[in-house]
């Protein structure tokens, strides 16, 4: 680009490429070149943040005494700089030459360039220096790691740091992208590149190393230490963690495509993005917004959405400081921040949880600028709650406009759809199934406490409002912790879990799902059905069909909403509990709130979320009750007991009426309450736990303690459940009041916050992910080890390769294996083919590279026995094991089987979608019937194989169908291509020729004998012109008849036009020409490798040039020489012929995969 002309004095590192009297084009000595200067320069470049562009154009002014130079243009590439050079050449030189005075010419040139710069800048939006630096870094990154733009690897952030390898630090740059962590250091000629995918990382730690701020990254057995100067370490660590977590979560959500995540990020910021409203700079129209800012935005948005329990899709527009008048005391202004979301206005007090509010913008009825102050704003809601925001300073107008604009747009749309539901919505079950009257013999004392409670609640509602918009105060928190009164439960649960927002914005959604669930069937429905009666069997509501039916509807609807979760045991228990207190629509949305937000991934495949929280719980225990934790750890109890605590919100562990209070807390406070209670439980039993000697004892101790927890205020509890450990003994032991437990949890562990837990979740998610992957790996390997010829280590290497993919230019691709997380991974053909070529050594051999792909497709289909478009590791191993270690016999079967697939059609092109070899595909070829016939046969064959478990003999035990002519030509082609690997082997080549000749003869005999047997085929014989060689193979004889026919080998048929003995020569000539063409085309194979053996070859046959030459050759050949259309050979014949040729056998048995170190 043009630059503001600046004078240069000294240019030792630049070499001149082109020059004319006025300008000189120079390029910078690169560190890739040799020489000392280059090395010094390279080192300097890596240390400095901005690297000068490699090309520049100087304007040079020569006078008698001196020379002056100005840089006028710089370029990152030769092309770029050439463009400017050419422009100068064609537009400037002639003008400049017209000047008499050199000085004048130069000043003209400078002025011209200046105007060009101005013009260019005008066109470009003004870029801030940070942007520029970032651009620079991104370019440097792409260059260093040779990332093609296709790969769409985008830089998120970069840090200057040093990597400590053994004893020496290497200074360099750390680049973070959406998929990878990269590090590059260049010091005096030696370059160090580290590339890690986020999925490779098993451990991240922020610590100090030799008194320095350091981050330790572990990947497999490798450990990397990066040290930071200045305060960058913390920031970098957070970003590392965020990116690694995003990656893990992408995996969990099964959308492993990096593009999608980019879209997700950009979608978030396409709308006005987060920034401080106080910031003056408007969001400019720059398309390119820094990715790291996007990620920061995302992080803040997520954090606040979690805090205010807003719908996940909400967008944060911005936030500003203000104060809110306390309705209970007009003098009291609560300081905090107001957050503007797309559909919500929220406030959070500076003092944690003192007060916060969430106002859906739709609820606002009036917004007014206060008169008493220039910085205050009144807001009134539809249900008459009033807020006074103050200290908005100069942002008041902005906020006012934002909200009134919103209201103006949406004022009239207040949907009040009263939809008719096709089934009766179940009301809270406790209404229909009240506790037996005996429970109402409550004393006057309990009645009085109830009354007092109700009074307190009513008082709060009067003071702070009711419903979504209520002031959420510390007082309310106190009330909730004493237990929510039954009649308020549904409202409070819905509001504080955020479920209410989903319910309001999706009217009729649940009803629709229920209707749909009547028509559809999911596998999980079976699981649901089995568990309906095993949910809360002790409650009368679930002993009748009333409760059961409601439970069934909710669980099925949820399974339909979220198929990736489907149904997980424990959801039934939690849901039945909710159904006692809420109607079923509310229950549905509360369940969604739990599984999707409060307890994320809990009920996922492999209950990942619960595993994560188990670890988090252990971390917290270690931190707060270290002694006890050490004891429990040595007993190994925690993982056993906490699983049911977390998954069922303690409902399985304690009487449900007590657990009900914990559900209150969970919905009100979020997940922290579970952790606090868990810690308190352990702490309260400290003395006893320390005395325990084994895991069983500890577990009994804790379970009996939990079973004794009662709810005094709600005596609906005495029912016992589950297998009691200490039945009978319970009566003698004192019971514990749940409220006491809650209070003790608050006092002792009240400082455990949701943010803390979220942070720890992020820390441990990677560990859990890795260990699950590890166990999946183990079980896959165990599944194959018995049926293979590989050793354990070889298998492990292969598995790694299978999961990682084939490295491209030293870069491991972003893992694209499919399959549910932590189950057997599968690959589709786009990954399989390179893998196959890599393993078979085919990729080394460029000459037949293209053909290799075709063969790989064949192999893919052969392996994809369940036709799901994916190949599992087990399936891959069955092939590779034969290739690498199989005996000759095995390999021959494999070679044969690879060609019985209906794959390559007349165009020689494999159908695009390998998994759907259905009629659509076949329609594209003109051999529909044939393909379907073969298809059927193959499918039958595959069916047979599927049933066989020992896959190493899979290929052997099957009885492959016969080869048609076309298939055989394909096979010949494969053999030929394979033989290229072996150079200069004339003997082998001759053997191939002879082999082919033999087979062709045999096949002809087969055809003849079949024809003789079957008189009806006579007609076909009379048709001299064959349109397609394969068409007539419709009359493919059954295996039995062909065997017969091969036995009754007949004499030559007079009907043929060419002497049969010529045919082998002709065909081999053709193939060899084909081969020659291929080899000579590539150039570096000795020409004499392939020599036409027959001087009397028919030159009228044009050598085909395409890669599918062989099949074309075959066709041409058939067309010209009228090979019988029903030519075929059987497997046995193939074997017999092959084994006659020693060099061939030798060659094939030697052939092995080469890339296993």
């Amino acid at each position, binding site marked *: 680009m043009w630059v503001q002309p600046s004078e240069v004095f000294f240019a030792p590192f630049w070499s001149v490429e082109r020059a004319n009297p006025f300008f000189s084009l120079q390029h910078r000595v690169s560190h890739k070149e040799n020489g000392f200067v280059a090395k010094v320069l390279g080192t300097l470049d890596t240390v400095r943040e901005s690297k000068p562009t490699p090309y520049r154009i100087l304007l040079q002014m020569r006078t008698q005494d001196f020379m002056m130079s100005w840089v006028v243009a710089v370029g990152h590439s030769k092309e770029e700089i050439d463009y400017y050079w050419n422009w100068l050449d064609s537009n400037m030189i002639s003008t400049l030459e017209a000047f008499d005075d050199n000085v004048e010419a130069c000043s003209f040139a400078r002025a011209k360039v200046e105007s060009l710069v101005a013009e260019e800048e005008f066109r470009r939006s003004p870029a801030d220096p940070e942007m520029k630096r970032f651009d620079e870094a991104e370019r440097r990154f792409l260059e260093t790691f040779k990332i093609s733009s296709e790969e769409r690897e985008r830089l998120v952030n970069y840090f200057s740091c040093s990597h400590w390898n053994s004893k020496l630090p290497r200074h360099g740059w750390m680049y973070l992208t959406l998929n990878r962590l990269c590090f590059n250091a260049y010091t005096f000629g030696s370059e160090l590149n580290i590339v890690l995918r986020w999925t490779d990382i098993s451990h991240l730690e922020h610590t100090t190393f030799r008194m320095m701020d350091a981050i330790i990254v572990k990947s497999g057995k490798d450990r990397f230490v990066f040290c930071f100067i200045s305060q960058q370490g913390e920031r970098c660590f957070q970003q590392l963690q965020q990116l690694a977590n995003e990656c893990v979560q992408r995996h969990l959500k099964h959308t492993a495509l990096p593009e999608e995540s980019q879209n997700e990020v950009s979608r978030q910021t396409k709308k006005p993005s987060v920034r401080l409203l106080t910031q003056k700079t408007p969001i400019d129209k720059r398309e390119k917004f820094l990715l790291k800012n996007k990620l920061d935005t995302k992080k803040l948005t997520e954090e606040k959405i979690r805090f205010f329990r807003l719908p996940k899709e909400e967008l944060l527009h911005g936030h500003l400081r203000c104060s809110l008048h306390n309705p209970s005391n007009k003098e009291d202004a609560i300081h905090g921040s107001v957050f503007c979301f797309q559909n919500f206005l929220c406030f959070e007090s500076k003092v944690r949880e003192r007060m916060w509010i969430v106002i859906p913008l739709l609820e606002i009825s009036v917004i007014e600028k206060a008169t008493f102050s220039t910085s205050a704003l009144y807001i009134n809601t539809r249900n008459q709650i009033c807020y006074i925001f103050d200290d908005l300073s100069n942002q008041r107008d902005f906020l006012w406009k934002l909200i009134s604009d919103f209201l103006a747009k949406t004022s009239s749309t207040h949907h009040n759809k009263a939809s008719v539901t096709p089934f009766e919505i179940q009301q809270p079950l406790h209404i229909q199934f009240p506790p037996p009257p005996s429970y109402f013999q409550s004393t006057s004392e309990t009645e009085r406490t109830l009354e007092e409670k109700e009074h307190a609640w009513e008082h709060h509602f009067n003071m702070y409002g009711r419903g979504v918009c209520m002031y959420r105060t510390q007082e309310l928190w106190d009330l909730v912790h004493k237990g929510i009164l039954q009649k308020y439960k549904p409202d409070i649960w819905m509001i504080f879990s955020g479920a209410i927002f989903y319910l309001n914005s999706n009217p009729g959604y649940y009803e629709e799902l229920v209707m749909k669930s009547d028509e559809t069937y999911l596998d999980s429905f079976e699981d649901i059905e089995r568990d309906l*009666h095993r949910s809360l069997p002790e409650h009368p509501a679930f002993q009748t069909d009333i409760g059961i039916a409601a439970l069934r509807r909710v669980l099925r609807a949820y399974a339909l909403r979220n198929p990736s979760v489907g149904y997980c*045991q424990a959801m039934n228990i939690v849901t039945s509990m909710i159904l006692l207190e809420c109607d079923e629509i509310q229950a549905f949305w509360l369940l969604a709130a739990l599984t999707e937000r409060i307890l994320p991934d809990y009920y996922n495949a*492999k209950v990942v979320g619960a*595993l994560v929280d188990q670890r988090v719980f252990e971390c917290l225990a270690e931190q707060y009750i270290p002694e006890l934790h050490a004891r429990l750890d040595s007993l190994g109890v925690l*993982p056993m007991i906490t699983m049911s605590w977390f998954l069922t919100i303690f409902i*399985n562990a304690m009487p449900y009426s007590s657990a009900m209070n914990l559900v209150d807390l969970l919905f009100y406070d979020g997940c922290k309450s579970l952790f606090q209670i868990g810690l308190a439980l352990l702490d309260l039993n400290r003395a006893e736990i320390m005395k325990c000697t084994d895991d069983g004892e500890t577990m009994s101790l804790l379970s009996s303690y939990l079973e004794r927890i009662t709810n005094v205020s709600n005596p609906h509890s005495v029912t016992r*459940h589950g*297998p009691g450990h200490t039945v009978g003994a319970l009566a003698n032991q004192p019971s514990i009041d749940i409220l006491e437990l809650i209070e003790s949890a608050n006092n002792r562990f009240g400082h455990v916050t949701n943010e803390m837990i979220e942070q720890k979740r992020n820390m441990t998610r990677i560990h859990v992910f890795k260990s699950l992957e590890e166990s999946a790996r183990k079980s896959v390997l165990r599944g194959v080890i018995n049926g293979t010829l590989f050793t354990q280590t070889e298998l492990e290497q292969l598995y790694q390769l299978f999961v990682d993919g084939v490295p491209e230019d030293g870069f491991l691709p972003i893992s694209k294996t499919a399959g549910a997380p932590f189950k057997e991974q599968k690959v589709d053909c786009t990954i399989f083919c390179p893998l196959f070529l890599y393993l078979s050594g085919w990729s080394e051999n460029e000459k037949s590279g293209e053909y290799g792909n075709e063969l790989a497709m064949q192999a893919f289909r052969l392996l994809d026995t369940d036709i799901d478009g994916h190949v599992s590791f087990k399936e891959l191993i069955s092939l590779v094991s034969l290739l690498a270690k199989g005996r000759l016999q095995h390999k021959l079967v494999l070679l044969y089987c690879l060609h019985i697939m209906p794959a390559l059609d007349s165009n020689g092109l494999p159908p695009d979608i390998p998994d759907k070899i259905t009629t659509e595909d076949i329609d594209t070829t003109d051999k529909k019937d044939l393909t379907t016939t073969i298809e059927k046969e193959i499918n039958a064959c595959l069916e047979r194989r599927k049933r066989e478990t020992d896959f190493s003999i899979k290929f052997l035990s099957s009885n492959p169908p016969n080869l048609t002519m076309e298939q055989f030509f394909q096979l010949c082609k494969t053999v030929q291509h394979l033989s290229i690997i072996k150079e200069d082997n004339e003997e082998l080549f001759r053997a191939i020729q002879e082999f082919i000749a033999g087979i062709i003869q045999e096949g002809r005999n087969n055809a003849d004998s079949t024809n003789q047997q079957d008189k009806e085929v006579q007609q076909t014989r009379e048709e001299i012109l064959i349109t397609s060689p394969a068409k007539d193979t419709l009359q493919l004889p059954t295996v039995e008849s062909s065997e017969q026919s091969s036995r009754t080998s007949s004499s030559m048929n007079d009907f043929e036009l060419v002497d049969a003995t010529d045919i082998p020569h002709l065909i081999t000539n053709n193939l060899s020409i084909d081969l020659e063409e291929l080899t000579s085309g590539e150039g570096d194979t000795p020409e004499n490798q392939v020599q036409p053996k027959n001087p009397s070859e028919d030159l009228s046959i044009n050598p085909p040039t395409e890669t599918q030459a062989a099949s074309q050759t075959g066709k041409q050949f058939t067309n010209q020489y009228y090979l019988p259309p029903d030519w075929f050979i059987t497997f046995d014949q193939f074997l017999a012929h092959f084994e006659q040729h020693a060099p061939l056998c030798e060659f094939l048995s030697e052939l092995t995969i080469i890339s296993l170190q």
Partner: protein
Amino acid sequence: MSARRKVLLKVIILGDSGVGKTSLMNQYVNKRFTTQYKATIGADFLTKEVMIDDRLVTMQIWDTAGQERFQSLGVAFYRGADCCVLVYDVTQPNTFKTLDSWRDEFLIQASPRDPENFPFVVLGNKVDLENRAVPTRRAQGWCETKNNIPYFETSAKEAINVEQAFQAIARKALEQDAKTSCDIGLEPNIPIQPEPAKDKSGCCT
């Protein structure tokens, strides 16, 4: 032999959801059957003192969650197991088919010293029901291919064969316990039983 250590046998019950693991355990330990069980989440255990050939041993029977997604949690419970009981429902062929994977999963996660000879016992539960779908021969056949696993057909509801099955389980576990304590250098405190479960007298036909 007076200084015998107290013997605690750890037995793990595995099998698909709803085959009756909890019921079997409760029938054996508490001699009762009820339809009012909650689905087991995580794991739970009961203990029972049993006499085996004049020896008093404590059996710690671990009941586990059956849904497949809980399989990976096993590693915490399987540690130190002496015997593994695989349960399937004779009316549900699928629950029989998954025995293989339950066995594999157990061996991977528990990683016992000698996986080939680790004692398993297979129980076909719910024989009281009419709609039986897995023939005895098929189950027996499978057990034979897996190193002759003892096989019992039980009904937790009717208390058929439960006692016998758990007796055999206890014996197997005791045998294994003796073996492992030998391995870790403890005094072998019981004579190794001469192939107690070879006879299939306990199996119903």
